């Protein structure tokens, strides 16, 4: 794993000291809120409905055990004993006191972490495939590039006041688990006809009020050109992006308004101009970074115990069926720990659970953990012969829910339970849907289904790319939930279509239940997923299920 060098360490410590001074001046009244707000946002500190919120970056979703233990300690010492993992591979603390935040940041710096650029109109935490370095379908581990991008973008003097926030995601696998097509820049590691490895560069994707699927800016970018090319994109955007209207300020709108061809021309022109300034320094840095990401020393040992345990314990078998993914090393598996127990808040882990996961990573997982954009925690490298022990420990800690990729593995943003921008709640809807499907005992029969919920048009809960998306709105002072169908956040990214009028808070869960049980009757066979059925049949049959009385009225 990447470890801070003296420069990183010095920089982060200096930032903490600076922010400590700013907090002191805010508390004694010498800074107004208007003056302080941009300063706190640069350090990941928001003010929400009931308290401050500190957003901490987990760069490209990778953590070691010591870092996870420190997150648990911070939760206990300065928060209410839990943390919320988000779709951008961050962790949010919902209850910090203003005066404690510098100490929290100091505690993060102790383990090489920070909250810098988790907010504001800067390049945000660079996200990556949460199976990076472990996935069997990967060309290369994307994290060295993500770390290179992190170092380049952190405190980049030209890019501290962009027209709007800027998000970059990287994946090294053909199967897109990092939603790269919904980012300002999405990077997909590919191989060209000559067999060389490089990047397909995608720009202008994004969700929010104007959802757009990213477009390919460059089919093949040689690896060595990554930084100058990204710098060219961001600097073109910095000049061209609109600052007159924040709803039109993201690069997706810049691309839309100017056309891909013009952006391409400007980026290539700028790229040629700045390329030589990089003079190989970035490549030397990359070599240094790559050394920190050498694969762990995978062991070879028999896996017979695993098969025997599967046969002996049906609950374990069910968990291995849903929560494991293929690993590139023989005898290993990738474990997804569900932070979506039925009825619990999606993405919330208690400090005790964090400690259990840290301990398991240390004992059985080559000391590595990941945070997924689907708000789960991953142990990327577990030998199959250890899975039964891992499962038993997870069960003790209430972390053994076997629902990865199923109906109750719901993404939900904080919504109006916390977020000041929300127009409705999202967490209780997620809790009720998961509880209901658990009661019905049909989610394993339903199979792969992605339900995603946002509490306002900003779409932090990715509802546009949910097979079923739910958007919470305020309709004349009452919470109302709009359904979209057919969204997809993978390599075949699609923005979901609105099904029709919204549902009240009381009616939304029955509506989702109708929709999903209705799908069971529509699918051609039990291998056809919800999304496939939707793609085959289109909106109409689903609409008829959602709005049955309207159907009758039309027929009458």
């Amino acid at each position, binding site marked *: 794993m990447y470890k801070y060098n003296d420069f990183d360490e010095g920089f982060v410590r200096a930032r903490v000291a600076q922010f400590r001074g700013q907090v002191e001046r*805010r*508390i*004694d*009244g010498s*800074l*107004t*809120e208007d003056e302080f707000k941009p300063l706190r946002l640069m350090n990941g500190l928001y*003010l*929400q*409905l*009931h*308290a*401050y919120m500190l957003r901490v970056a987990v760069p490209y979703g990778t953590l070691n055990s010591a870092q996870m233990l420190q997150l648990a300690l911070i939760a206990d010492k300065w928060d*209410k004993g839990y943390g919320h993992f988000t779709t951008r591979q961050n962790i949010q603390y*919902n*209850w*910090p*006191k*203003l*005066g404690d935040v510098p100490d929290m940041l100091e505690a993060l710096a102790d383990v090489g972490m920070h909250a810098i650029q988790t907010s504001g109109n800067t390049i945000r935490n660079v996200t990556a495939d949460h199976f990076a370095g472990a996935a069997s379908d990967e060309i290369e581990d994307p994290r060295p590039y993500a770390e290179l991008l992190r170092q380049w973008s952190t405190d980049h003097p030209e890019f501290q006041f962009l027209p709007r926030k800027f998000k970059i995601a990287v994946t090294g696998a053909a199967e897109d688990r990092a939603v790269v097509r919904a980012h300002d820049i999405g990077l997909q590691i590919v191989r060209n006809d000559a067999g060389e490895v490089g990047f397909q560069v995608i720009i202008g994707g994004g969700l929010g009020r104007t959802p757009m699927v990213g477009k390919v800016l460059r089919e093949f970018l040689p690896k060595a050109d990554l930084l100058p090319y990204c710098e060219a994109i961001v600097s073109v955007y910095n000049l061209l992006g609109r600052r007159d209207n924040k709803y039109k300020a993201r690069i997706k709108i810049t691309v839309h308004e100017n056309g891909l061809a013009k952006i391409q021309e400007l980026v290539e022109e700028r790229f040629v101009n700045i390329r030589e300034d990089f003079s190989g320094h970035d490549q030397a840095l990359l070599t240094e970074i790559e050394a920190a990401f050498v694969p762990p020393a995978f062991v070879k040992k028999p896996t017979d115990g695993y098969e025997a345990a599967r046969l002996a314990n049906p609950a374990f078998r069910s968990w291995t069926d849903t929560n494991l993914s293929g690993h590139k090393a023989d005898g290993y598996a990738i474990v997804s720990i569900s932070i979506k127990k039925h009825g619990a*808040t999606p993405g*919330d882990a208690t400090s005790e659970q964090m400690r259990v996961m840290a301990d398991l990573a240390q004992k059985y997982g080559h000391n590595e953990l990941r945070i997924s954009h689907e708000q789960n925690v991953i142990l990327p490298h577990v030998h199959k012969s250890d899975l039964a022990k891992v499962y038993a420990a997870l069960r003790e800690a209430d972390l053994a829910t076997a629902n990865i990729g199923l109906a109750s593995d719901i993404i939900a943003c904080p919504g*109006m*339970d*916390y977020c000041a921008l*929300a127009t409705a*709640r999202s*967490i*209780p809807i997620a*809790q009720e849907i998961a509880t209901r499907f658990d009661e019905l005992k049909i989610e394993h029969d339903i199979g792969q289904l992605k339900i995603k919920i946002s509490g306002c048009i900003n779409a932090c809960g990715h509802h546009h790319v949910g097979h079923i998306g739910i958007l919470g709105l*305020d309709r004349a*002072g*009452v*919470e109302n939930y709009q359904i979209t169908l057919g969204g997809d956040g993978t390599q075949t990214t699609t923005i979901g279509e609105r099904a029709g009028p919204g549902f009240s808070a009381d009616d939304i869960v029955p509506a989702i239940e109708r929709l999903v049980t209705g799908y069971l009757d529509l699918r051609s066979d039990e291998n056809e997923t919800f999304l496939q059925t939707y793609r085959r049949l289109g909106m109409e049959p689903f609409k008829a299920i959602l709005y049955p009385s309207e159907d009758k009225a039309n027929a009458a």
Partner: protein
Amino acid sequence: MARIFTPKVVTANALLEGDAVWLTEDNTWTRNIAEAELITDEAHGDLRLLEAQARADEIAGAYLADARPGSSGPEPVHFREAFRTRGPSNYHHGKQAE
């Protein structure tokens, strides 16, 4: 004709804790909306908001929120403001736990 002014309270987040507070008639900040000053006059409301905003070392983000008279004092009108009087619905945290 001038539009009708709906009653308001001045509300903000406390500077140190970040939780919701309301301005009382005697210029203190209360954590109980029922103790807030219910403002029924638009010009008075604008003035009270300015006064609140000037108190930078006590609060952040002051604004006027709709409220209605209740049996024991002002009550929130909108559900967002009602949540601010209680706390989140997924845990027994915030004001409902105090």
